[in-house]
């Protein structure tokens, strides 16, 4: 047997390059212009002008504070809801039912979710319509600032609704680990309440698996662009959307300022992460202290109730929003305060799809190409590590999380500059590469678990029958893992569809997807067309996941043991 960790194999090297390369190059490409060095545009002296300009920008500290505040609040709230609900209800029927509802919500792109939630909570939105005019007395939309409120409350709300399903699924996956449920039983049989038992006995076991996703949520929420453009405050906006404005400003000097601002963005996100790490320590100290004192918190009905209500609210808000997207996309007229459209017109949706044809095509092509590349590379990586008898390593996991732990904007600016210099800017290939940086990690996260969980004895049985490595892969492992492989493909495609900033920056207006279109339309106020594009955003992941469920069922319709329970 060759010893385990001697030399890195080719797919590991490739994966490292694909993940680290753009990030490092992008960071460098952000750093240099921030200090005045951008030779392509004629700036070739190192100076601090960009920073001076940045500091002089009105409302800068408020923008930074908004990013920090909404980002941290979103992340903490989301985690609290997920943990409270899981603590109070895991193992119950309610838990199982709600989790079935929440899982598909993960694949809803952020932009589509934001547009749908705007339809729900706007002053002229569905909730107000339901109560008007009989309860509120309003016959026209009230003049209150709900969307784009100055404190970023609607932004926070939308991000929570979107991040809760993500963190919840990560928690569900962690709960699947062997014996975890037994710790909960042990704690409860010692007289601990459900919530306290979970927090003191189970959470410490599974938290390491939730931690990286949580940090990724913080990095994302403090630097989000698409949701902030639809729901975030505008006077001033949070930092990240402002940076994008400067980046696209005709005044080229603004680009240097945008780069300097990106460093501020990195600092803001880092500060939020740091605060979280401190909070993490504090909370762990408190739970340890409480459990070593034997506080059992047996009466936790109120807490459990709160967890359930919050979780149900999130699920209901998301489901309603998706429904509203559908309604708006086929509504002809829908005057306030009617709860449902007065007139329907599916033909207009058809027209909008026709107009958006090129965008739809680009979205689908990008999604398929990115998903194929990411899934194939993941398979290659896992298969190679398997034959070299390498176990899953923490280092590899951390590598895959890295692009998710750095604010996208932090290296996309630089990457954009780099592509500009290379003349790749606006090409399909460049956008695909930028997508892959974010798609590949999710593909790996989706596939590595089922891969390592596959009974290794199938491989042993096959090789003791004399089958070669290639034959074992194609005839045993791959077909056995067909379902998770297809799910991975669908996840990867969904992630690609959801990409806003990479498409916007690297696509340079030449590559346009339904996602960039829907955000532009939504901030332009065209509800019906924005809804059509948002629905298109939903359809692609939906089609992917349906196929991923359908194909294995068809292929293995006569194979009982290949049913859903295996994956």
């Amino acid at each position, binding site marked *: 047997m060759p010893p385990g960790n001697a030399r890195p194999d080719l797919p590991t090297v490739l994966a490292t390059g694909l993940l680290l390369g753009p990030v490092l190059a992008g960071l460098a490409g952000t750093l240099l212009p921030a200090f005045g060095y951008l030779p392509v545009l004629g700036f070739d002296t190192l100076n601090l002008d960009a920073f001076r300009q940045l500091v002089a920008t009105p409302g800068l500290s408020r923008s930074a504070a908004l990013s920090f505040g909404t980002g941290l609040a979103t992340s903490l709230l989301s985690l609290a809801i997920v943990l409270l609900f899981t603590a109070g209800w895991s193992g119950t029927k309610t838990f199982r039912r709600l989790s079935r509802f929440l899982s598909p919500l993960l694949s809803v792109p952020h932009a589509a979710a934001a547009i749908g939630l705007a339809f729900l909570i706007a002053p002229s939105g569905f909730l107000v319509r339901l109560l008007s005019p009989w309860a509120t007395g309003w016959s026209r939309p009230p003049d209150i600032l709900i969307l784009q409120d100055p404190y970023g409350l609607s932004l926070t709300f939308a991000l929570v609704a979107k991040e809760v399903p993500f963190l919840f699924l990560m928690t569900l996956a962690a709960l699947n680990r062997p014996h975890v449920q037994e710790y909960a039983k042990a704690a409860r049989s010692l007289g601990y309440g459900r919530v306290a038992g979970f927090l003191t006995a189970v959470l410490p076991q599974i938290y390491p698996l939730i931690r990286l996703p949580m940090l990724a949520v913080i990095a994302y929420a403090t630097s989000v662009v698409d949701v902030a453009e639809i729901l975030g405050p505008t006077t001033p906006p949070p930092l990240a959307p402002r940076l994008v404005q400067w980046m696209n400003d005709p005044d080229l000097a603004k680009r240097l300022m945008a780069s300097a601002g990106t460093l501020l963005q990195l600092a803001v996100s880092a500060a939020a992460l740091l605060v979280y790490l401190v909070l993490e320590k504090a909370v762990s100290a408190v739970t340890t202290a409480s459990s070593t004192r034997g506080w059992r918190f047996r009466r936790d009905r109120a807490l459990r109730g709160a967890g359930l209500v919050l979780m149900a609210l999130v699920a209901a808000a998301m489901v309603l929003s998706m429904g509203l997207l559908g309604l708006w996309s086929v509504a002809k007229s829908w005057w306030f305060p009617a709860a449902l459209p007065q007139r329907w017109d599916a033909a207009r949706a058809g027209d909008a799809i026709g107009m958006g044809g090129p965008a739809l095509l680009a979205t689908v092509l990008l999604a398929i190409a990115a998903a194929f590349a990411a899934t194939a590379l993941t398979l290659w990586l896992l298969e190679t590590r398997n034959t070299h008898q390498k176990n899953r390593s923490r280092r590899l996991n951390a590598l895959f999380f890295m692009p998710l732990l750095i604010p996208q904007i932090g290296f996309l600016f630089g990457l954009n500059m780099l592509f500009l210099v290379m003349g790749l800017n606006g090409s399909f290939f460049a956008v695909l590469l930028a997508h892959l940086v974010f798609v590949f990690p999710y593909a790996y996260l989706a596939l590595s678990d089922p891969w390592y969980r596959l009974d290794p004895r199938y491989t042993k049985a*096959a*090789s003791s029958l004399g089958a070669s490595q290639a034959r074992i892969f194609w005839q045993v492992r791959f077909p056995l893992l067909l379902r998770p492989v297809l799910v991975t493909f669908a996840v990867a495609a969904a992630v690609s569809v959801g990409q806003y900033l990479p498409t916007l920056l690297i696509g340079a207006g030449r590559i346009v997807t339904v996602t960039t279109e829907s955000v532009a339309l939504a901030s332009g106020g065209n509800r019906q067309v924005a809804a059509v594009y948002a629905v298109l955003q939903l359809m692609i992941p939906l089609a992917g996941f349906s196929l991923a469920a359908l194909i294995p069922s068809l292929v293995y319709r006569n*194979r009982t043991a290949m049913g859903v329970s295996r994956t």
Partner: protein
Amino acid sequence: MKDPGKTTQRAPCARSLVLDKVTVRLNGLPLLHIDCAVSPGTILTIMGESGSGKSSLLDFVAGFLKPDFQATGRVLLNGRDLTELPAQERRIGLMFQSALLFPHLSVLQNLLFAIPAGIKGSELRRSMAEKALEDVGLAGFGARDPATLSGGQQTRVALMRTLLAEPEALLLDEPFSSLDRNRRAEVRALVFRLASENNLPVLLVTHDREDAEAAGGDIYDLDAGSALNTAAG
């Protein structure tokens, strides 16, 4: 406490499975030591509770030793040194606690998977697989989904799948432990009969004394500190 190497007769001819001074260690600590030879058509039974290292011994012989384990010594089969060979080139047939029929293939496809690629012609391959099913009383089961077979039937298919790959030795890793009592003796007798008909050296790992006695060969007891009992016959 006796050294098994001294009591086991080393087969004089090259046609046998030889474990030549094999020591398996876990993170440097010795787990077991064995030095013996299994001649064609005979069964050496290794007994031990879980954790005694018997599955890592099988892993070593079959070529699957995990990185945490280290082994010294050699494995020889019919004069070939297998120690450095990858599993698929060892020609050692392996049967597990569960039948491990590939769930995505039909019963017949499972058997076809095992027939060496050198045997050409789909008609011939097919008839070999069908003949194998007949031999174990499962004629006509080829198109079935393996998951619809009973435990005993699955084990019989797994046995034929192993034999169709034309192994030169058999390793049995508690292959009867998942069967109920009634089936157990029947399937066990079948496995032993076919192994001896094919003149294969067999290494059987079990914690069930009944299995060990039914095997009728030497018994190497890991729990009893390497004592070796010779059963009748």
